[in-house]
């Protein structure tokens, strides 16, 4: 029974979260996802037009007219939902078509769809590994991989972020295991840096290990034709397992997949619990994702525009005097180090019409607070110009322009 005492217990738990400054408040968007949105913040305030610089809408597909139209067609022709898991009566021909199209796009052998990439990562490890195996993960992999590894009986180990020497030590150390699976993100979501996938693949070849790549922040735009970090690093076709999402560059709705060696994919189809016990991805999303792949396979214009925007935005921030994390990806973290400063700057930017979010511990390491900006092909030159004007104004207010870590920490604390 939900007694008063129990209610108080939970209220106290929520208060603890709030007191630690970790209470997350949602902002209500009164428009479609886009570069220009209408946002109500704080709750109850008059909705305001702002520029969105924090979406994973890398290619602007979330509200692309052709994708919306394809979704509407899927809705009209194939209905709203499947009311079933895949293996009972939830598989339409279009589900299989999308799996085959993703296989071709990702340069793998086969693909199985999941309700999300969180679910793909939650299910893949226990489906393909046993207690005689080991998973060796980069220390900065996404939380969904951490959860998936927790659900698996194989031994866990980690290597220092992007440290190939340390990875090699681990591969030597675990020579006795039946299977060694090296696990990495393609683009790391908080730092925006890219995995050294060519070197990881070479080490895995040398030490007879498999590779799992979570390319959620790369599929659709990294690499010359947008296949992902494996294309970017010249190792397309050499990745044993790719997990990725339809919820970012490939449409932004929901859905994810495991793609890779056909036996491993089949094992996921047979054993992965989030696949077996969740509804099939809804028909309008399948139709929309198929259209996204049509668009990406017929032209690289959107990924090229995103790449140009990324170069321009990084240059603008540097010239204005901000301390940013280096990298090639459209995730561009503006480093502020101090948690409160990251919240204050994000708040002021919102007042200036720029929607960004400040991240701090435990999402990023202590003393590494930042604002994570994300580029999109939906951004035009005017968006970048308006944003850098606002960033510069706020940067001046807090006197952080031209200042590095030590100076910012000296002024605002760690």
């Amino acid at each position: 029974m939900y007694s008063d005492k129990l209610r108080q217990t939970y209220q106290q738990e929520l208060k603890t979260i709030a007191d630690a400054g970790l209470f997350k408040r949602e902002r209500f968007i009164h428009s479609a996802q886009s570069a220009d949105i209408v946002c109500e913040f704080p709750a109850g305030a008059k909705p305001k037009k702002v520029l969105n610089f924090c979406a994973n809408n890398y290619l602007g597909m979330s509200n692309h007219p052709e994708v919306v139209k394809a979704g509407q067609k899927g809705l009209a022709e194939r209905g709203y939902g499947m009311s079933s898991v895949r293996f009972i009566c939830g598989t339409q021909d279009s589900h299989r078509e999308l799996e085959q199209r993703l296989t071709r796009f990702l340069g793998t052998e086969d693909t199985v769809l999941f309700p999300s990439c969180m679910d793909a990562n939650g299910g893949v490890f226990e489906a393909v590994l046993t207690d005689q195996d080991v998973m060796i993960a980069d220390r900065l992999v996404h939380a969904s991989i951490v959860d998936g590894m927790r659900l698996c009986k194989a031994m866990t180990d980690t290597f220092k972020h992007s440290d190939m020497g340390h990875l090699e030590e681990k591969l030597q150390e675990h020579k006795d295991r039946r299977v060694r699976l090296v696990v990495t993100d393609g683009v790391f979501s908080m730092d925006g840096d890219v995995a050294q996938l060519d070197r990881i693949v070479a080490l895995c070849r040398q030490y007879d290990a498999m590779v799992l790549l979570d390319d959620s922040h790369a599929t659709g735009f990294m690499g010359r034709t947008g296949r992902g970090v494996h294309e970017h690093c010249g190792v397309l076709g050499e990745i044993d397992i790719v997990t990725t999402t339809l919820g970012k560059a490939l449409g932004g709705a929901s859905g994810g997949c495991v793609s890779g060696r056909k036996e491993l994919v089949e094992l996921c189809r047979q054993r992965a619990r989030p696949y077996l016990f969740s509804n099939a991805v809804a028909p309008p999303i399948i139709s929309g994702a198929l259209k996204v792949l049509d668009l990406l396979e017929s032209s690289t214009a959107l990924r090229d525009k995103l790449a140009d925007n990324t170069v321009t935005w990084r240059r603008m921030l540097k010239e204005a005097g901000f301390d940013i994390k280096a990298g090639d990806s459209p995730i561009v973290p503006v480093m502020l180090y101090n948690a409160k400063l990251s919240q204050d700057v994000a708040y002021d930017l919102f007042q200036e019409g720029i929607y960004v979010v400040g991240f701090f511990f435990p999402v990023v390491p202590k003393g590494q607070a930042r604002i994570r900006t994300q580029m999109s092909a939906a951004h035009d030159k005017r968006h970048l110009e308006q944003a850098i004007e606002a960033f510069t104004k706020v940067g001046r207010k807090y006197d952080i322009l031209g200042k590095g870590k030590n100076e910012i920490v000296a002024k605002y604390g760690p």
Partner: protein
Amino acid sequence: MNELTTLVLDYVKKEYLEAEDDRQLTPQTKLISGGIVDSFSMVSLKRFLERKFQIQIPDADASPEAFDTVDSIVALVQRFRQKK
């Protein structure tokens, strides 16, 4: 600081701190609850101790509490060395 403590402390520094990490670790520094070592990365420490001291630490004893400081790790190692 005795030899065993130094050995474990050195391993923890080498294994878990990044090159640019300037945090000063002592035998009393909270490793797991302090966010320096996560529960996934504990396995390498456990394997290191087992190999180095020719002991077996059952999973039930390799708890986050037992691995939370270099001092508690040293106590754990001593306990299992005596059992040998």
